[in-house]
Every structure is written in C-alpha cells, then in structure tokens.
C-alpha cells in the first residue's frame, strides 16, 4: 500500500460520502444518515493516512518534507480540511443535510488532484525557497481558511435554494433543510472562522517571504489576490455586523468570496505569473 493508492481510495470515498449525503437530502432517506457519517469519517481517516504515508515516503526518498508543497499536495490537504471542518459542523448542528452541500467540495478537490493532467503527483525535491517551516504554517493556515470558505459557499447555495423555493409553494424536499435563520447563522460563523485563518495565512506568508527574500509584501499577484479575498470577506463581515445585512445578500457574498478564493488559489497559478509559480508544478 502506498500513498497514491490510499489517496485514490480517498477520492472515491469522498464521492461515496457526497452521494450518500445528497441521497439523504433528495430522497429524505434518513436511515442513510449514520452510514453517511461513518463513510465520511472513514474517508477522512484514509485521507489522513494518505498524507501521513506520503510524508514518510518523502523521507524514504531521501528528500523529507511535509506534503504541502505543490498543487497536488495542497488539493489533498484542502479536501482533508473540508472533511474535518464539515464533520465538526455536523457534530455541532446535528444536521446531516449540510453534508450534501459540503462534501462535494472535498470530493471535487480530491478528484481534481487525482485526475488533472496539468500537474504531477510524484514526490519531488524542494527548491531552496520552499525549504522553510513557514511553508507548513502558511499552507495549513491558508487551507483551513479556504475549507471554511468552501463550506460557507455551500451553505450560501443552500440558503439561496431554500429561499427561492419557499417564496413559492412550500416544497417538502426543502423542508428538510435547516431554517433560513439557522443557515444564515452557520454562514456567518463559518465566514468568521475562515476570515481569522485567512488573515493568519496571509501573515505567515508575509513572514516567510521576508525570511526568504527580505520583503514581506511585494504585490505579487498571489499576495494581491489573497488581499482582494480578504477585502471581500472584510466587507461582508462589516455589512453584517454594522449594517445588519443577512439572508440572501450574505449568502451571495459567501459565494462571491469563494470565487475569489478559487481565483487566488487556482487562477493565479495557471492564468497569471509570479513568485508562486512553483505552486502550479
């Protein structure tokens, strides 16, 4: 058993988990609930083992680094962070329908990592700039934040679906979704959590840049986009805290913010050039 096999299984386990949650929601098959949770926990554990094994393999290959240093590894960690964040949410809110709007993100991240031909999956030695403990702190803080934003986006979509339908005839399918007030609260709490981690991610990145290049901020496209994302969420939080925005507007902003996250993470690597170009390898 090697790490690629484990991470391959993880992809399908997340797919299975996402499908179970969606079935739970669409067919109101409550009996699937516990099973869905167990599959998700199992998938998360396999994902964890995969990351751990890859770490060990890098040492066996004589390179030895935390598997958080390229596009593939970051996507795997992204899926991991989404899964654990979602499991926490399910445990806190005792509602499994949330999984139908969260776990697909974990699956998509793993699927993209596994099947994309644009970047390699092999364990490659680290170039000197990446040989820093700040790399670990930076990637972890960023992706915990991104995971929260992914779930917030899922919750935003859930809110918009429920809100649109309840305007017309009451749909019994949507009755299984949490009340709008509760979804709104989940979105807000998730955004707040994500914002703290995004801030920490930008800061650890700045400290790292300063120790490698002597500049903590150079308006490189990646840095700039992370700041744009930060501005978007900061505006969202202010709109809510002080102008009382809620409901649809915040739900839309949660979706918009996540688009900005995706562009920061993915778009910058493949569409723009800059210091983070190695992230695309």
């Amino acid at each position, binding site marked *: 058993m090697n790490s690629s096999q484990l991470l391959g299984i993880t992809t399908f386990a997340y797919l299975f988990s996402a499908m179970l949650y969606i079935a739970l929601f669409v067919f109101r098959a409550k009996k699937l609930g516990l099973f869905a949770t167990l599959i998700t926990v199992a998938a998360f554990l396999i994902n964890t083992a995969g990351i751990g094994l890859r770490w060990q393999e890098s040492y066996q290959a004589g390179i030895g680094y935390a598997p958080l240093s390229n596009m593939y590894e970051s996507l795997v960690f992204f899926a991991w962070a989404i899964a654990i964040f979602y499991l926490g949410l399910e445990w806190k809110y005792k509602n499994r329908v949330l999984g139908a709007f969260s776990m697909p993100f974990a699956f998509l991240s793993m699927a993209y990592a596994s099947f994309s031909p644009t970047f390699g999956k092999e364990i490659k030695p680290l170039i*000197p700039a990446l040989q820093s403990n700040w790399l670990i702190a930076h990637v972890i803080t960023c992706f915990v934040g991104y995971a929260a934003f992914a779930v917030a986006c899922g919750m935003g979509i859930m809110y918009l679906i429920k809100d649109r339908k309840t305007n017309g005839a009451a749909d019994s399918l949507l009755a299984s979704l949490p009340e709008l007030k509760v979804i709104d609260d989940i979105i807000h709490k998730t955004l707040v959590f994500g914002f*703290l981690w995004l*801030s920490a991610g930008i*800061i650890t990145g700045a400290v790292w840049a300063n120790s490698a290049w002597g500049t903590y901020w150079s308006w490189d496209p990646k840095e700039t986009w992370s700041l744009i994302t930060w*501005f978007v969420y900061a505006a969202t939080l202010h709109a809510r805290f002080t102008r009382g925005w809620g409901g649809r507007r915040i739900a839309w902003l949660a979706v918009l913010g996540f688009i900005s996250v995706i562009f920061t993470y993915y778009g910058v690597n493949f569409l723009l050039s800059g210091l983070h170009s190695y992230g695309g390898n």
Partner: protein
Amino acid sequence: MKKTDNMVWRSFASVRLALFTLLILATTSIIGTLIPQKNPPEFYIENFGQRTAQFFQMLDVPDMYNSWWFISLLLLFSINLIVCTIDRLPNVWQMVVMNNLDTDPERLEKMPHRQVFHARGDAATLADTAATLLAKNGWKAQMASKPAGPLLFSQKNAWSRLGVYAVHFSILVIFAGAILGSTLGFKAGVMLPEGRVTDTVYETGTGNPLPLGFTLRCDNFNVSFYADGATPKEFRSDLSVLENGKVTIDKRPIIVNDPLSYKGITFYQSSYEPMQGFNVVITNKATKTSQTFQIPFGQKISWKEGGIDFGVINQEVRSRMGDVNRLKVWFFDGQGEPSIFWMDNNATQTISRPAATYEFEASQVYATGLQVAKDPGVWTVYAGCILMLIGLYVAFFLSHRRIWVYITREEAADRCRILVCGASSKNKIAFEKEFTALVDSFTHDSTFQNA
C-alpha cells in the same frame, strides 16, 4: 458645531465609506495582477500599443500599487479607520468601564434575556443564595442595595468589546511599519564574486549605489543539486564582514531562508552567476608547498616560486548560465613535455611529472547574488500582525456577557419577586443556552421553590 453633527465627519466615520473603500481597493487591486508591474515603458508599448501604454503611464498603471491614486485610497481607508475609532471608541469604552449596578431597573425589565419568578423569604437571604448560585455557575457577582431591594450584577469579558478596535488599530500599525520601512529602509542587490569585497550595494529598480557603512566579502559560494542533477538543493554563500580593516563576522554561511543580518542590513541568498574563471590550488607533494590562485579563462599564469606555468585552455559548459562541467588544463614545470588533461570542475587532479608530483585543484568562480534589505519597520509590521490576530480572535469569539439579578419585596403577597436578566454583545444563541441553564439552576434550588 459638535463633531458628531458635522457632515464630513459623519461620512468619514461611516461604515458605508468603509464598505466602499474595501470594495474599491479589492477591484482596483485586480488591475495590477492582470497587467504586469514594473516593466520598462517599451514593454507596455509592445504589448498594449502606443495609445494604451500612454494611458497606462498617465495613471501609473505600470506601478499602480505605488501610484498616487492607490496610495490615496489607502490613505482614505486609514482616515476612515481613525475617524471611525474616534467616533465610536468613547461610547464603547463607556460600556467597558460602566457601573452596571447603576442600571435603571426599568431597563432591566427590557433586557433581551429575562425570567421572573417568586420566592418566600427575606430579600437579603435570597440575595446571598443568588450570589452563591451565580458563583457556582462561574459568575462572580457584585451587589448593591436599591430602594426596592438588592441588585446583583456579574459580567464576563467586558474588554472584549475592544477587540474590533484592536483589529482596526493593528491595520494602522502595519501601515506605520510599512511607511517606516519605505522611508528609512531600502531594497537593493549585489552580485559578489567569490573572494571579492564590496562596500556598496545597488538599489532595486533604480540601480543607485548605496553605501553599506562596512565591507562585505564573499569567501565562497556553492550550489548543490539533488540526485536528478537539475533541481537545486541548496545555494550557500560564506560571507564575512569587515569594519575598519577588522573582520567582525567571519565566514558566516547563508542559505535561502537563512539570511545574515548586520547593523540593520540583511543579506539574502537570492541567485548566483558562474564567472569566466577558476579558483586553483596547486600543491607540490614533494616540497609540500602550496599556492592558491584565482585565474581567468584562457590565460597563461606563472607561479614563479614553484617554477610552474599553467592555464585553463578549454572548458565544457553545462547550462545556458555557463556552469562549467569539465575544464582542460595546460600545466608545465619546465621539464619534459607539458601535461594537458581534462578534469571535472570542483575536483582535484594528481599530475605526475618527471621531477615531482602535483595536486591540481580547480573550481569555477561563482558570483553570489544577494538581495539586500534594510527595513526598520518590519518589527512594527509584525507587532501589527500579532495584534490583528489577537484582535480578530477577541472580536469574533469572545462576547461581553452581563447578568443581573434583581430581588424586590412584594409587601402585599409577602414574598419576593426575582428578576434574572442578561445581555450579550454577540453570539446571542450561545448566550441564550447559558442563560437558560443559569435560570434553571435558580428555579431548581430549594430556596427559590417555596413560592
């Protein structure tokens, strides 16, 4: 005119302006990520055409993050933060330090969370029991006597109301650090060949020479590669600092992510450049004499004391950068035919001559590329960052929670009315639960079950 009525003041203090500034900053920042920054004017003419390029230059688009209009936006953002803080902080401070035992009983009846029940007994005794119950639930209470009966108050994290201001202030601290760095510091670079010294570095962008105030020497540079032969594993320079002819730092190795700091100036390993030349050490094994040279490519060099002439007459280059893989040496000690041989770079070759045996050690000369930064603002920026994270945590996850218990004597019914009420600055749902649990502990207590 009161400052709070001034229209200009009001608009600078408004959250509407904050939202506007944040969104304008977000959207305008995109420009600089799409249009490459800090390229020479020709680049923009070539890629965007004469007219567009002219338009770009007019609006400072090629260096937009330092342009007057972007700096103005940041300034507007800062003014907004400052005015907003001056406008609101006094009231919030009042909330933090206020004496809640002075709260008007009328207002207690209107608190968002409240519960009323009755109990028999003496008001003072009931107040003591209430204080004990509050303490048991983690609420340390103060008490005051009101005309109608005793009032108890307890609160948690009053100071957490300041969290958001800590975040706002931290942004200003970061800006202050950035201004400090850009006015009193510099970013520069220097290419320093092995064995050479410099007391000047060259400013990034302008190329202006900047004096260091001391002398820097590169003693050695090394690049090592992973087994694949292509991925660099480590760039390492040994640097020495000389001041007034004295060596103050002797051969300190620096690598990427581990720079050398001296008198506020930091040297970062950034790049390297292979040079046309070699470091050579020749050792006569018979006489045990040895001599070090730095020689150019393709030139005859003489070691008079050793009676030797030598030179590098050919080289095999590996990369476009000019890294030498192998070199061809011409070596003559005046007896017989000269030795001509190929050897690897960074290696030692033994030369057997009729009269003696020599060791010939050769390695290509490199220049180390150093980035040089002086940034006296960096610790201010870091302090701002730490303050921001603490502030965000406090602002998001801690709430100012207050509980009052007001016990009033109802003469007619010969019993006391007990009002438990509370308020939380945020996270009302969690507070609701906490409040309900507290009320339950009251209503389940035997002292309060006799009404």
